[in-house]
């Protein structure tokens, strides 16, 4: 059975690790990247079914990563969920405006994240 590939791009290493462990329990195939550039490379090499993308990262921030994903033909169809601890008023609207599929604030409920991944991923 095809397992859904989830790429998690976030500089919070412990959160990436715990999210990978959690998503494996729900039969996903998660991969982590700890900054924007690494995330773009991994997305390019092995197209995931969906991307979880943090915003506040050193170097390239999440909005720039999202822009580059959407501007690259090979990756533009991958749904991206913005996944952030940063304070945004109207975070959801902002994420959608920038081309993301959804928005989830940290800390999140695990089952809510799983539902969101299942809703948006196109295997």
């Amino acid at each position, binding site marked *: 059975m095809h397992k859904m590939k989830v790429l998690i791009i976030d500089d919070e290493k412990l959160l990436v690790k*715990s999210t990978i*462990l959690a998503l494996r*329990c729900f039969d996903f195939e998660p991969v982590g990247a700890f900054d924007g550039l690494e995330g773009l490379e991994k997305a390019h090499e092995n197209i995931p079914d969906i991307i979880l993308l943090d915003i506040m990262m050193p170097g390239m921030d999440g909005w720039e990563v999202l822009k580059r994903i959407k501007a690259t033909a090979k990756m533009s169809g991958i749904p991206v969920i913005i996944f952030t601890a940063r*304070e945004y*008023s109207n975070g959801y609207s902002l994420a959608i405006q920038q081309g993301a599929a959804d928005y989830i604030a*940290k*800390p999140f*409920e*695990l089952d809510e994240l799983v539902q969101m991944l299942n809703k948006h991923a196109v295997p």
Partner: protein
Amino acid sequence: MEHFTQVIESFIEQLPVGIVTLGADDGVVSVNKPALSLLDMGIEDTLSGSFCKSVPVEEVREAVDRLRNNSSTQNFFFERGGKYVKGCASHYAGPEENGILIVLEDATAFRQMETIKREFLQSILYSLRNPLATLKTSLSILNAGKIAPLPASVQEIVGLSVLEVNRLNALLVDLRDLFYIETGLAEKELEIESFYPGKAIDRAVADLEKTQDLCKDLKERLRIEGRRDFSIKADFEKTKRIIMHVLSNAAVFSPKESPIVVRLSGNGLKTTMEIVDRGIGIADAKKPFLFTKYFREDNEKTRAVHGNGLGLFIARSLAELMGGSIYCETMQGKGSSFFIGLPS
């Protein structure tokens, strides 16, 4: 009398705030130096004709206009010459009929402090959310028995840890709401939509059951009565947060298995959710403080329950922000009814 007037004039001149008084014809009756400085005007600018024509600050002109159109006291602010100025225009009964009093205050330092406070709080919230997210995710996997079934004692420890993480998270959410309310950001992020109250109540109950130990059986205790087809026109998430604060109090401060009733009603303009519990109620002397910040009734029952005293303050602020209201009828020892009214 002349001496008295001189004393008053000298007193006004030395005040740390700007004062301008206008007559009915909009001419300047008196103005002190701080006011001239804050408005960036010279005394000669105030000598002839209409104040509104000579004052170079649009916000002041608009406030005076609104006040002349029979409005109540007008608060405003503006930036000029690198200063942030807070102002207030009100009617006053001076030597002339229909006089207007304008008070101006240099709030530059105050705003700098507000900015520091905002940045500090945002940084604290941001820094706490990431580790909290890691803890929450890790504990959720263990708690759900996703890796392996846990021995009962370990399961209990994990369960307690989940509740504590959720409590910390609820505190962060309350702090965030408080901060957004007090800085006016809450109003800017409103997303008004139309929905049925039942949907917001269901979501509030689901969230409370997940995050609060004393709300675990809330769904079984809850009875919804009345017509469910009156809609609400408000921000869904904020409406859910209002309901959560009221329902959580109802659940926590009433006997464990006692029912909680939500009565829905409406009149086309306003939809009301009345949340009724058979809890401890509130003493008459404490009622006026119920919706104020950090209010907590001090008795044996409330001491046994964790809380930060922000819930009802946030609930009322959010309701008012969306053009609604919230009030309470309560009797100590008998229970309380909270009425949440929101636009239809």
